[in-house]
């Protein structure tokens, strides 16, 4: 039987009078990939930020490995140690080399020795084809390279769950492929992931479960074949038609 890594129950989040997430339920089993799709402003990023406790939910609850992380008594830092996040804008620290970016959390948070942290970092970099970039500063790398470094940085904490927030949205089309192939590899290795994305073809290939968000509500959820092939909701159909017209699927 599979274990559920992340579970959301009736999550609600609003900024002032704007309700961004409304009654969102979600279950992410171990070793599976969940893709969040939907127009900009539909709540995909907010959902990920809530899961990582970067935002406080107004109502509902979020569970990581069955433990409620939205409980005010939960140790937020301990929760974040078990979740890796990759942001749309990379968010690498510009004043540190690639190697220092990656080893910061293992050394300061996980109390790994410098040698051990660097060995692990170099191994991960090599696996993502970045072995020669360890000593570089982020601003000297291409967008695709920076984003792969950001993925390595997220992986270096050995997370239970990886959250990817539109990680290819800021990349040139020819650089998108190298980042997505890294994500495919991670899936092969059994990493549990939640991915907010505009890359529909990628979502269809890689996801085990697709959630279509619209106005802060999970309007449709299911296997990619169902959501993309035979959407039940009219709004999903309209969204997918727009995507097809834009040549993105």
């Amino acid at each position, binding site marked *: 039987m599979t274990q559920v890594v992340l579970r959301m129950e009736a999550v609600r989040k*609003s900024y002032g009078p704007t309700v961004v997430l*409304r009654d969102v339920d979600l279950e992410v089993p171990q070793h599976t990939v969940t893709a969040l799709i939907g127009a900009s402003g539909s709540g995909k990023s907010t959902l990920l930020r809530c899961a990582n406790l970067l935002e406080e939910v107004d*109502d509902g609850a979020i569970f990581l490995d069955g433990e409620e992380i939205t409980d005010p008594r939960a140790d937020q830092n301990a929760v974040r140690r078990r979740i890796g996040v990759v942001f749309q804008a990379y968010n690498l620290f510009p004043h540190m080399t690639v190697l220092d970016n990656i080893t910061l959390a293992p050394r300061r948070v996980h109390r790994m020795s410098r040698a051990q942290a660097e060995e692990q970092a170099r191994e991960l970099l090599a696996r993502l084809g970045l072995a020669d970039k360890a000593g570089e500063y982020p601003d000297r790398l291409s967008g695709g390279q920076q984003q792969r470094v950001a993925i390595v940085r997220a992986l270096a904490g050995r997370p239970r769950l990886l959250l990817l927030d539109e990680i290819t949205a800021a990349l040139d089309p020819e650089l998108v492929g190298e980042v997505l192939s890294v994500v495919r590899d991670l899936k092969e290795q059994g990493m549990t992931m939640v991915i907010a994305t505009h890359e529909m073809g990628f979502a269809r290939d890689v996801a085990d479960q697709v959630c279509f968000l619209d106005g802060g509500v999970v309007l449709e959820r299911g296997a990619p074949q169902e959501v993309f092939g035979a959407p039940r909701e009219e709004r999903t159909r309209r969204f997918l038609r727009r995507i097809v017209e834009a040549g993105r699927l």
Partner: protein
Amino acid sequence: MLDNPEVPHQDETLPSADDGYQPSARRLERERLHRARTRRAIAVAAASTLVTVGVLYLAVTHAPGWPRTRETFLNAHYARIALPQVLKGLWLNVRLLVCCGALILVFGMLLALARTLRGPVFFPLRALATAYVDFFRGLPLIICLLGVVFGVPALRLQGVTNNPVVLGGAALVLTYSAYVAEVFRAGIETVHPSQRAAARSLGLTGAQAMRYVVLPQAVRRVVPPLLNDLVSLQKDTGLVSIAGAVDAVYAAQIITGESFNYTPYVVAGLVFVALTIPMTRFTDWVTARMNRRQSQGGAV
């Protein structure tokens, strides 16, 4: 279980959602926990403050020399005599602060801009500004003050004032402009070059890019260090008393000189502190408001 219909919609802090949303029992429990935690934090803060203040109070009042110290530094009689004099003197400090502060901001900005000018044509201007900053930032204020206040009248120039307040103010402006110029320059340099590139790409000239895009961001970033310099200036306005102008510090000194009681100095010190606090709170409030407007929130 999640939506408890028995719980009335009464929490004032809730956003006015039009979807008939009712806070769940879970949320109410969470909010109760938050409130309990806040109450506990306040109690802990109050207790620790009480203990700290109590220990300090006992330590001071049980010092062997306390009765004598209290008589010399905290004498109510002399405080009453000193306060009106000190306040009258303070008026001079305030006027100096406002006039010098405004001039310093203008000169500091001009110096900073001169140092950021590019192109060989501007070399003399750039060099002059750099030399000025190097010199006046290194020169001790008191020496600058003595030089201006006593040196300028010694020249016996026609039409140049001998008023010690004006000359003292000029010395303050000379020194502080150099400091403030460096603060502005640091702010200008923290604005990312891409902002300038974006502005130039819209067809703005270099000066326009500076005026409308770079400076507004730079100035916002340096408000806290600028305030720091302003508070420092406020205290240094007291130094004009060496030229014979009666400001708050000098007024206190006069009374102390007659009575050999130091209470007037304490009064003057407290009056200065009282003057800076509202200024600090005001700028904190302004910067916080700017930040709120520009950035999205978050729990971290």
